[in-house]
């Protein structure tokens, strides 16, 4: 396929692998932030082309994975109410809450529907005026503008039966949290190209300076990732800590201004709990005062629902790059894609699920 095959070319990939080996003289640990990149790395086997000194750890950039347990429990509580139609992206349905998942709630009779865009949920609210339609707004800067558009559209239509259960999170605060953790091992980042396409990457400059880490905004195809790694390694070897853009065909420093404008109209930053990591200041989004009446947590009175994460699950350490999925004692035994303990085993972007799917038998043999 045009504009795709070019970025998956075998000979070019092998050339980049050689270049990377020549560039790497010391051991380095670098993190790809985005779950989409983790997925690509495992799907194409990119990690197997890397020189032995260069270690990739997988970041927290999987929206399904970092959605806190209590929010899943709140989602389930809302979905079980007879008047609600609960709309979600498909990935979220299988994520385990404290006791069950949305998929189980659906099997027990909750009206839960998979949608592919928040605007579909608004349309549903318009068609079903007697029901309360709730959209589970999950994702990073990439999906938040779509939710913001849906909120604006619901307001324009004067819909009183549409609301949002908001779980949106922001990438740069999470990077800062990883870098300031005492056990941090990450020396450089591949930043998520799609997030930067929307949000730009000027927020990364202060991070790179403050923590003295190079950051390369990187795409998702094999050659993007390999080229991003070459740029990052070159900086590491030379002791540089700049923000560079590998994903120039899509990402610009200032981002997508139209998307950011609607985002700022509807959402403002807030302190947010990350699953397995804990609370991070200014890392989440909440509705701005003009849109506050769309808040499903308030509308259905579920703010008090709290949850404890299972102790056997090391998702927090895995999402911060402190451990690899197969180093978790529960990996492949207590925790499998069929019976996940933690969210990273659920989503195809989750590091544990990617290891299980692409390394299943091998990872278990270790």
């Amino acid at each position, binding site marked *: 396929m045009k504009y795709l095959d070019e970025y998956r070319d075998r000979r070019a990939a092998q050339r980049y692998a050689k270049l990377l080996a020549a560039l790497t003289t010391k051991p380095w640990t670098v993190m790809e932030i985005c779950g989409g990149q983790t997925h690509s790395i495992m799907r*194409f086997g990119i990690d197997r082309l890397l020189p032995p000194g260069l270690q990739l750890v997988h970041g927290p950039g999987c929206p399904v994975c970092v959605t806190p347990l209590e929010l899943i429990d709140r989602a389930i509580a809302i979905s079980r109410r007879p008047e609600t139609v609960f709309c979600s992206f498909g*990935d979220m349905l299988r994520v385990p809450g404290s006791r069950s998942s949305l998929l189980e709630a659906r099997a027990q009779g909750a009206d839960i529907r998979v949608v*592919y865009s928040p605007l579909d949920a608004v349309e549903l609210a318009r068609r079903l005026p007697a029901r309360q339609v709730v959209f589970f707004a999950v994702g990073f800067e990439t999906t938040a503008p779509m939710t913001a558009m849906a909120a604006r559209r619901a307001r324009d239509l004067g819909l009183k039966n549409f609301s949002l259960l908001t779980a949106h999170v922001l990438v740069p605060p999470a990077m800062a949290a990883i870098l300031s953790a005492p056990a941090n091992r990450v020396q450089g980042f591949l930043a998520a190209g799609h997030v930067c396409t929307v949000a730009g990457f000027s927020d990364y400059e202060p991070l790179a300076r403050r923590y003295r880490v190079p950051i390369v905004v990187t795409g998702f195809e094999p050659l993007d990732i390999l080229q991003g790694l070459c740029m990052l390694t070159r900086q590491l070897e030379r002791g540089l800590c700049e923000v560079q853009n590998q994903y120039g065909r899509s990402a610009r420093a200032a981002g997508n201004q139209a998307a950011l404008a609607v985002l700022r109209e509807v959402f403002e930053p807030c302190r947010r709990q990350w699953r397995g990591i804990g609370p991070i200041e200014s890392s989440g989004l909440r509705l701005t005062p003009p849109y506050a009446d769309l808040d499903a947590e308030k509308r259905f009175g579920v703010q008090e629902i709290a949850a404890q994460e299972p102790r056997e699950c090391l998702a927090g350490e895995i999402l911060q790059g402190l451990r690899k999925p197969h180093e978790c004692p529960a990996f492949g035994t207590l925790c499998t894609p069929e019976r996940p303990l933690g969210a990273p085993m659920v989503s195809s972007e989750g590091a544990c699920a990617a290891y299980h799917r692409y390394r299943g038998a091998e990872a278990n043999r270790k």
Partner: protein
Amino acid sequence: MSDQAPACPMPHAPEDTVTLAHGGGGRLMHRLIEKVFLAAFTDPALHEAHDGALLEPCPDRQAFTTDSFVIRPLFFPGGDIGSLAVHGTANDLAMCGAQPMYMSCGFIIEEGFSLEALAEIARSMARAAGQIGLRVVTGDTKVVERGKGDGLYLNTAGVGRVVAPDPIAPVRVRPGDAVIVSGDVGAHGAAILSVREGLAFDTALKSDAAHLWPQVRALLEAGTELHCLRDLTRGGLATTLNEIAQKSGRDVCLEETAVPLRPEVEAACELFGLDPLYMACEGRFAAFVPPDHRERALRALRAAGAAPAVIGEVGTGPRGEVRLRTRIGVERVLDMLSGEQLPRIC
């Protein structure tokens, strides 16, 4: 009883939809059978209107299969639930090296279903069966209350006459066997995706649903030694190869770049974050043949109108795994999925 006496009135039935009364065994049901089913299916065995079909004696071994169809939407680009039921049933028999001979069909219809749609589906089944001389010899109709079904479910059974000289089964797979796929993969799954509620996108893509028997017959007539045949249905190529690898206890090595894919299928998969290797097909199969029969198999398939490709071979490894050489030349495990593929969030 006089003509004026209050009798249980004939249930009022709107002319254009199926009602519970159509399943009640009375006059409405007989009218339904006559107007819809007997009008579409012309087999004398069916028109006998007996409780069962009486079949001719068969000197050969016979293959017997059953399948159920719950697809949504019922009409999709390149087919409908009726043609799909015929293809699916016949293809299961073809994979046993058997010529599809007879089939049955049970219709489980939801109250309120359009009679015209039902008639169209019945005609489509009859057309698909006629293409390979498969006889629809018996059937059944049930109507369920509104909300208790999804429009229409079909359940079929099929009987075939085994013509392959040797058994066709995973246990006969040997190291060195060539793995051939009969055409491009994933078009059925992508076509269904393109018309799903909430996902619909514009594409000229059509389902690959088709009969596999003509291609299998061509392989057999060419004298190809067939170790294993398996149609790629739910779960796609990756799942099928995993089933065969596990059953045979042999490793299967697959070359990703050799797997034929239509650009439209690849594009749809990229858009939704799906892997084409797991996309459903309804008119493709994988054949395991010894290396010295590889060219013969390819020639026979091409002569039967297929566009086959050699996509890998059976390795010497004993683990029963599928190993994929990815596009960038790295080898990894190609596992089964734990459930349905779900579109990714971003």
